[in-house]
């Protein structure tokens, strides 16, 4: 029942996106606000020193949708997120944010030095004072209410990611930006975490921009996928991205096949293999290698 409703929601989301796409072609600002665009970036290029990090990237996140940003290591995913958050000025391009957009951010690789004594409670109120009740509620929402007084260095990978997620929720965000939210989390914990992110989106109707190099699991919960490798290789629904030849070239046939099987339980594996067989491209090789990066130890923390 709930599943059905969710599926329906996703379909209607996609319909809305189509409408929005058409409206946006005219660059109509009022229409953009009306169609629930939280943040929109066009023609983003970023050059650091002699290295071109991003090239003419366009990305847009809407109310209540989960947008997954995937790509191999070094594709510029985190740089794009930093540009969108206003932490890094792009070399060229424009970014529009909804006025007074509240963003909840979970950065990649937040390691807290053991020499800094920090409890979960103190981490929650790091940048702004918050009533204890709100802190407790946010921790409860991500299932880690019991860890309020724990030192952050004692948390497992999964617990820590949940605490960071609760931190982001404490700001009542309209947009959640999650950079590799399942890093350091084991497989079971990963599935639970994705489920939690999906549930948060349902409950709060906030937009979610999720960065991942892990293709296999991301897709199930996601509405749209943007595949980035310096430029936007392909974009669309999870299933269509998996069939995109550009995607297959980037990540290799095995990733694409796995993805195809995952998103579409019935078929398509041979279809993909047919479209693929050209492993001469080294980008494909690299992508495939990056895709099977070792997963650090850590428990699910549920």
């Amino acid at each position, binding site marked *: 029942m709930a599943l059905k409703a969710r599926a329906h929601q996703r379909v209607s989301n996609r319909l809305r996106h189509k409408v929005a796409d058409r409206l946006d072609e005219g660059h109509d600002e009022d229409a953009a606000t009306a169609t629930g665009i939280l943040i929109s970036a066009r023609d983003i290029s970023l050059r650091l020193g002699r290295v071109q990090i991003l090239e003419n990237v366009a990305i847009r996140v809407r109310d209540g949708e989960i947008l997954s940003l995937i790509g191999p290591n070094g594709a510029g995913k985190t740089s794009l997120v930093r540009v969108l958050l*206003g932490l890094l000025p792009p070399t060229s391009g424009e970014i529009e944010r909804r006025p007074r957009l509240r963003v909840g951010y979970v*950065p990649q690789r*937040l390691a807290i030095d053991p020499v800094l004594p*920090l409890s979960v409670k*103190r*981490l929650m109120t*790091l*940048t702004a004072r918050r009533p204890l009740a709100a802190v407790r509620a946010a921790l409860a929402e991500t299932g880690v209410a019991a860890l309020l007084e724990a*030192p952050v260095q004692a948390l497992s990978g999964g617990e820590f990611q949940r605490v960071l997620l609760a931190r982001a929720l404490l700001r009542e965000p309209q947009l959640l930006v999650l950079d590799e939210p399942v890093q350091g989390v084991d497989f079971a914990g990963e599935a639970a975490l994705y489920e939690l992110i999906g549930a948060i989106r349902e409950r709060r109707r906030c937009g979610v921009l999720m960065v991942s190099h892990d293709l296999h699991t991301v897709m199930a919960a996601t509405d749209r996928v943007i595949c980035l490798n310096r430029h936007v290789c392909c974009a669309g629904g999870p299933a269509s991205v998996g069939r995109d030849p550009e995607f297959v070239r980037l990540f290799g046939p095995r990733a694409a096949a796995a993805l195809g099987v995952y998103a579409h339980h019935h078929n398509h594996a041979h279809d993909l293999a047919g479209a693929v067989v050209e492993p001469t491209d080294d980008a494909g090789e690299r992508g495939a290698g990056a895709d099977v990066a070792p997963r650090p130890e850590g428990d699910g923390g549920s």
Partner: protein
Amino acid sequence: MDLDHFAVRALVAGLGVAVVAGPLGCFIVWRRMAYFGDTMAHSALLGVALGFLLSIDLTLAILGVTVAIACLLLLLQRRRPWLTPDTLLGILSHASLSLGLVAIGAMAWLRVDLLGYLFGDVLAVSRADIAIIYVGGALALAGLAFFWRPLLAVTVHEDLARAEGVAAAPAQFAFMILVAMVIALAMKVVGILLITSLLIIPAAAARRYATTPEAMAALAAILACLAVVLGLGASLRFDTPSGPSIVLAAAGIFAVGLLPLSRWRALSASLFRNGNSS
């Protein structure tokens, strides 16, 4: 309190510096900036030379030069990314110290107590020095309190803090100024070469007993004061140089904190038993 007695003046001056150095030192430790603090401290000798040369107030000259060196460092880091911060610090640290020594040596007319600047001469502080230490120290503490939350947030994760609206650059700049202030004040007590130790040792010693950043800062201030009292006491009693004695006292306090707690419990229990039986 009898400020006419040199030992009292030394104690008052030392405590004034310790109360500021403890909390600020926590940030040096948390941000892994021990070498950065050392570099700024070394450049203080250049400030001393400049102060004599231009006959301006030494404290102001030291402030100016240390901040300038820190700015130069940040600039070089941005413009020459192929030089690691570590290497840059090593270059600036010793170049500025050497330049200071050469400049002081070149002023042949000047008779200065170089050892006093390098290792501190707290037994020679005047009432005016104490006034500077307390006014400057109060300013530095107020500044630290004001920037505490943004500075801590930036220390934990700069991007996260900035994404949540924390103004990172002002906090980081303020931190640099605060370090420069403490160096200018602490030079009289422990000297240029030992200032960093007064910043980091009490903070490191406090880490073990603290569960929040604020508690660690407060405890570091207390332990720094304890080091000053013990160090000065030893210096007067055994006629050892005051600055190094204070640093040794701090190191002793740190070493005590390294012992496992269980060992302490066993030790105090056995002492207690012996006390009862005898």
